């Protein structure tokens, strides 16, 4: 059974089309919802929770229609919102227990479970301190405890590593992986950090400007970008770029190197022909980020990409940016 299913969902805020006839199928496991800021990720999550009413389309979560049974959905879903949302002068234990009661737990089990869940997310003795004094990382943990305390079947995490330091981010990603692997809770992680998604998710939904660019398993989607090379040829300047392109290679700059797709023999031939020193040529594995950037560029320049993208010509896939 699908964990969540969205059909033809649209939402507009004034003149901004936040989501435009979106179809999404979230399967069991851990799914990443990725897109740049303003892509429509948070809107989609709020629509799944029934916090916003769609302009058109329908959504179902855990088999419940969000429009007609929003309370049933919210009783079974845990949500970690983006940004600050915790009361500053209440202890973590009290607040998590309060939120457990709002999830339907009687007071005593709510307190006991709040203590257990705080411990699980790494808040042990700190849970007796007022939340206002917590670091961003600790506050994210409290929010995760709030999302987990009523034992949901699905977790919706909106930018869970937002504002965290590298260690805190590592810890949070480990916690998310544990939730999926050990607790058997399905997770939908919304983030703009593709590295986070690659670390913990099995599947991904890519959104851009209110439309779905691609969705499917990470291996499948990352694989749509063919392997290539990172090179440093001469000064990597516009002349080099043009020469490689003329030789039939798909090229685009990335930091200090050029990313090239095609035969490495052609790169060698161009270098020999022009007498440019080939200082570096290293193979690059296909990555989610490459795919996302490619699909995003395609969406910006033309019609939206199909839901499951197919690799087309190297030129179309990689483009040439000057």
């Amino acid at each position, binding site marked *: 059974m699908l964990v969540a299913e969205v059909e033809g969902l649209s939402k507009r805020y004034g003149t901004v089309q936040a989501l435009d006839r979106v179809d999404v199928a979230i399967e069991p496991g851990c799914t990443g919802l990725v897109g740049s800021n303003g892509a429509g990720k948070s809107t989609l999550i*709020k629509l799944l*929770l029934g*916090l916003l009413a769609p302009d058109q389309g329908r959504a179902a979560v855990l088999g419940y229609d969000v429009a007609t049974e929003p*309370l*049933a959905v*919210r*009783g079974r*879903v845990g*949500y970690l*919102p983006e*940004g*600050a*949302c*915790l*009361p*500053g*002068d*209440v*202890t973590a234990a*009290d607040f998590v227990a*309060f*939120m457990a*009661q*709002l*999830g*339907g*737990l*009687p*007071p005593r*089990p709510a307190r006991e*479970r709040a203590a*257990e*869940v705080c*411990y*699980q997310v790494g808040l042990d003795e700190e849970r007796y301190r*007022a939340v206002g004094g917590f670091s961003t990382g600790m506050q994210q943990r409290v*929010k995760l405890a*709030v999302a987990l305390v*009523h*034992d949901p079947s699905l977790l919706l995490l909106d930018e869970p590593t937002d504002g965290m330091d590298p260690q805190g981010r590592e810890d949070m990603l480990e916690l998310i992986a544990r939730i999926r692997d*050990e*607790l058997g809770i399905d997770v939908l992680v919304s983030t703009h950090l593709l590295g986070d998604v690659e670390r913990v998710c099995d599947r991904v939904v890519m959104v851009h400007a209110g439309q779905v660019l691609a969705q499917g398993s990470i291996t499948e989607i990352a694989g749509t970008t063919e392997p290539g090379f990172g090179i440093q040829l001469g000064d990597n300047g516009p002349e080099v770029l043009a020469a490689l392109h003329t030789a039939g290679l798909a090229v685009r700059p990335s930091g200090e190197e050029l990313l090239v797709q095609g035969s490495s023999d052609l790169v060698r031939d161009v270098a020999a022909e022009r007498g440019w020193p080939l200082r570096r040529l290293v193979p690059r594995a296909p990555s989610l980020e490459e795919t996302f950037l490619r699909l995003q560029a395609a969406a910006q320049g033309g019609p939206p990409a199909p839901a499951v993208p197919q690799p087309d010509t190297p030129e179309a896939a990689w483009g040439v940016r000057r």
Partner: protein
Amino acid sequence: MTEATPAGTIYDRGYRHYEGPREGRGRRVRAIAVAGVRRVLGLKRNWKTKVVPFGLLVLAFGPVFAFIGARVLVGEAVGEFLGYGRYLRVVAGLLLLFAATAGPELLCPDRRQNVLALIFTRPVTRADYLLAKLAALLAVVGLIALVPLVVLFVGNTLTADSAATYLRQNLDDLGRILLAGSVLTVFYSLVALAAASLTDRRAVATAGLLGVFLGTSALANILFFTARFDGRRWVAFLSLSGLPGRFVDWLFGDGFDPGTLADQAGFTGPGYLVAMAVVAAAAAAILTWRVLRLRA
């Protein structure tokens, strides 16, 4: 040979799914209401948050307990305390202060700190939230409006030479105490929550509410005593802070102070009760409109 007893127990502190009972809407409303009462009284919070509520509680209960204590020690020779009506008028002033601080405490931080983003992602409707917050404020305002006078009545009864005679002769007063206390509780609670629903800043809500109450009273007096126009006696209803006291005076038969606006306007208690009902209904409408539009 005896069986070896285990030296200790190993507890598995791993995550477990919750298999226990789950309660319904009533529990969720109650949880928000109880948390609200705790918040207003400053329970489980730092000592500074307890100063105002407990200070007002001491002011409301202190004289009553002191009087009853004196009656227990000295007997009826202590004489009569302020009448129930007079004491309720004193309490009404405290109620305004209490409601003006408690109402904003209940509603404003949830919006200012964005806690609603979490509350409304549980199976809690806006109506549940409104009901719970109103219940919390009614409980704490009722604590000041009703309990001290009921305690005073019980104290008077128990320390009288004949408790049964006192009870028989003054049972009407108990009814008046319950009626007046309930009316004041509902009036102040609705008005305070309506004011709090208009802003997410506690101080603004408190100052605004007190300003409107005291300002309308001053305006009504200025208009009545300085201006000359037909029907100027109707400005008596403009004074929001005067409405509860005048209703209480009428209910307990204390009469209005001579020379005051209430005395000269010529209206009686039911008129002020209707005025309070109109204000409370308007406050309820504002509150409902604001809370039902809250966004998570």
